[in-house]
């Protein structure tokens, strides 16, 4: 909660600081430190008695360890990204303070989304986040693709928001409550109720959330938006935004709709299969790494969706998001530099990277191995926990399909690794200069991936 206050104030301050004529460097430092402070404040709340705090806003928001852990992942990923952001922000010549402010506001929205206890709070959180993202997606104003991304995202996003809002309204009509506990107790009290309004409301909510987290068949916006947006925005969307979306989606389904899981079980089952398959099969034929990561993020969304179906271990989702976020940070960290040096993100641009820049090649290899789920990386245990929970609940076929897609996944992730290690660079070698600080951030990402791959309990046992 204090994190929320810090970020909100920080956002307002940064927005105004343009008027005060603050320099870009100092704005960047303030924003990064601010996120760091929010992360710290968030961590300090861990395991504290927060009943008084929770009462403060009529329980519109609830601070609990689940929320704190998820917000921790979000803030940590944003913090990590900002540490790698110097290049990106230095190319923005105008209105840079507003850029910083938009990211901070998006984070504010995400915290609301994760900690919500009331559907109106969820809606407000999603809106705060989305509006910032619509602008950021189009922030490369002179680039046609960026404009397209922004418009597409905006249109699709507002449709989704509309559907979501309709769902909230119907649920309120049927259950008489915006509160998660109120909705839950309605369904618990009427287990056999086939109240059509409530069910339609529930499915509209499901669809609205599925849009936001790019789950098939509502994923069509994602690849174009991811590709068109500035790479930094893409990284932000596929890490922090994705985690926030899933954290709130999970909470919604887990708390409110577990009593009538029979109604949506098969729907979500189909969604998972579609998401994983569409994501990984389409990723197979991509030639650009950015787009490949976009589809892979769709595929990962499918795995995260499994946690909603099994819905008994919060830790599964927490660990999956943590592993995925770290791997994404590493991958995008390298991608930023390669795009900057080679001018495009084709797989061929990575040819011979192991010679010109072994460190970057190694970082990206660790990231790809983790995303593919190879042992000794965090990604292995992420998939392992999720799939174990699914088998435990009897979803054998789902697990088999997921495993087949994991095989496909190895193929496309290793396409990049092959390019880096086994292929020669066509033109002359461009050595990419990496600042020691940047190296430090990537090294900590590598270490985190491997440590979690050897000793996952560090994160898994948190909640």
């Amino acid at each position, binding site marked *: 909660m204090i994190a929320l206050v810090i970020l909100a104030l920080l956002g307002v301050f940064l927005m105004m600081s343009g008027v005060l004529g603050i320099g870009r460097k100092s704005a960047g430092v303030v924003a990064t430190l601010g996120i760091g402070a929010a992360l710290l404040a968030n961590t300090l709340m861990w395991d504290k008695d927060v009943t008084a705090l929770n009462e403060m806003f009529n329980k519109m928001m609830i601070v609990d360890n689940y929320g704190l852990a998820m917000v921790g992942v979000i803030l940590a990923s944003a913090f990590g990204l900002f540490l790698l952001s110097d290049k990106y922000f230095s190319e923005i010549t105008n209105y840079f303070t507003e850029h910083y402010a938009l990211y901070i506001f998006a984070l504010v929205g995400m915290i609301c989304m994760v900690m919500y206890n009331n559907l109106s709070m969820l809606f407000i959180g999603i809106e705060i986040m989305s509006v910032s993202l619509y602008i950021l997606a189009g922030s490369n104003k002179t680039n046609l693709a960026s404009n397209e991304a922004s418009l597409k995202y905006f249109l699709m996003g507002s449709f989704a928001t509309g559907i979501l809002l309709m769902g909230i309204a119907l649920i309120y009509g049927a259950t008489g409550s915006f509160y998660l506990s109120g909705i839950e107790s309605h369904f618990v009290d009427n287990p056999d109720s086939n109240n059509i309004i409530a069910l339609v409301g529930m499915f509209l909510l499901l669809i609205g959330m599925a849009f936001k987290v790019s789950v098939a068949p509502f994923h069509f916006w994602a690849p174009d938006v991811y590709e068109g947006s500035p790479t930094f925005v893409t990284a932000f969307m596929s890490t922090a935004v994705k985690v926030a979306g899933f954290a709130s989606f999970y909470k919604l389904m887990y708390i409110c709709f577990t009593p009538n899981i029979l109604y949506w079980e098969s729907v979500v089952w189909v969604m998972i299969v579609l998401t994983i398959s569409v994501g990984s099969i389409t990723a197979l034929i991509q030639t650009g790494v950015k787009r490949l990561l976009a589809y892979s993020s769709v595929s990962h969304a499918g795995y995260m969706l499994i946690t909603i179906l099994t819905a008994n271990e919060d830790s599964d989702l927490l660990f999956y998001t943590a592993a995925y976020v770290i791997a994404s940070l590493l991958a995008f960290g390298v991608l930023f530099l390669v795009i900057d040096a080679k001018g495009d993100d084709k797989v061929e641009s990575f040819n011979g990277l192991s010679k010109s820049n072994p460190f970057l090649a190694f970082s990206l290899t660790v990231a790809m191995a983790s995303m593919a789920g190879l*042992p*000794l990386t965090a990604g292995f245990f992420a998939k392992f926990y999720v*799939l*174990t929970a699914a*088998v435990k609940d009897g979803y054998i076929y789902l697990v088999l399909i997921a*495993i087949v897609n994991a095989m496909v996944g*190895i*193929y496309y992730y290793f396409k990049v690794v092959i390019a880096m*290690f086994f292929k020669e660079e066509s033109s002359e070698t461009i050595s990419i200069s990496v600042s020691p600080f940047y190296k430090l951030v990537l090294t900590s990402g590598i270490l985190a991936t491997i440590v979690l791959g050897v000793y996952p309990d560090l994160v898994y046992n948190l909640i």
Partner: protein
Amino acid sequence: MITLALIFFPLIASILVFLSGNNNAKKVALLGGLVQFVLSLVALSKYQVDPSSLAVNQAWLTSLGVNFTVGIDGIGIVLVLLTSFLIPIIILSTFEREFKNAAAFYALILFMSSALIGVFVSYNLLLFYIFWEAALIPIYFIAGYWGGEDRVKVTFKFFLYTIIGSLFMLVGIIYVYLQARSFDYTTLSALELTCSQQGWLFWAFFIAFAIKMPIFPFHTWQPNTYTTAPAAGTMLLSGIMLKMGIFGVIRWLVPISKAAFLCNGDIVIVFAVIGIVYGAVLAIKQDDIKRLVAFSSISHVGLIAAGLFAANELSLQGSVIQMFAHGVNVVGIFFIVDLIERRTGTRSIKELGGIINQAPLLSVFFVIIMLGSVALPLTNGFVGEFLLLNGLFQYHAGLAAVAGLSIILGAVYMLKMYQNVMLGESNEVTSNFAPLTLSEIIVLTVISATVIIMGVYPKYFLDLSQADIHSLVSSHCSSASCIK
């Protein structure tokens, strides 16, 4: 503790090698390999005093109730010895070659050795799987980065093939975990499953192991990978890595799918025997000597697999000792192939000939190792193949007769290769054949000595694993049990 040292020492050594720079890497790596060998001898001496002193049990993943459980039994010790014996030999065998990024090359070899030891000492299924997969990553880079023509395509096929097999196994592992609520070896071997459960588990595990060995018809990645990988990579693959599959069958497949293991034995043995003949016939037709040895390896492994699934004490005893013997022999032969290729620039039988005139010493070593490979009495190959065929004969006489062809066909392709490569008139390719260097002589002497010592006095090696094989057979293979 010594078990942990065996796993983690090569890991630390691999980091040191990586940091030591390209010029010193091979020496540091050799040193590391030798220390590792000494460690394994210490483990051997401890094993002979008290095997249980090698067991380690540490809490690891509390969320799943998984412990870090390792230990060494009579079968494990043979493979641990094989690994730590071959790794320094493989490192020494590369001394005449210069590799780009040598530090990374040798670091990967040591890293792989760590993972291989891990596979052979794990008494926890999840731990086993992690080491199993971890062993794949270094060999993938070794074969892909330092390999020959077409390496990218070939190694990628190998990589995908084995990983797909492993993922089937992963499904099996998750399933068996949910039945037993444990990954622990003792719990799993006491687990009672229904026949159909055992059947499914059998195939899930078997595919992973069969691809690794490889058993016909899962072998299609093997000839190309062996041929394109650098010599050291081929030695790692054929000398040690394929034993992972055989070992996996003994350690995990037998206790988990007891009844299914016995009743599916027929099918597997038939395929294994087909593989024996198929590999041998194709080996006869090869012109490329490296490819010839690759096919011969399919044939030899087919026999080991057939013995494995015949599941009697003799055949299992044979397959364990043959794992060691085959590992040593195949490394020796691949090394000879490599040194011929390095000197003449070709591996084609047609172009070679008459090397004996220039390098008589080489031809002596070649004969010894070759005879070991064709299982002449008093060589190490004979002990294993004799036990295997004997055990297989008890299982089914007809199959044993067909499998016995392997010895005849093996003699055909090996002698044909030897005759065409070493004997005859020297030609312009082989007339400038340089004499053996010191490191080559050391490698070949060690290997030839092992071939003869094991052949003359196999009792020591057989005694190592005898007790554990006996208890394995009497507890799992003598009677089929599953819940109807």
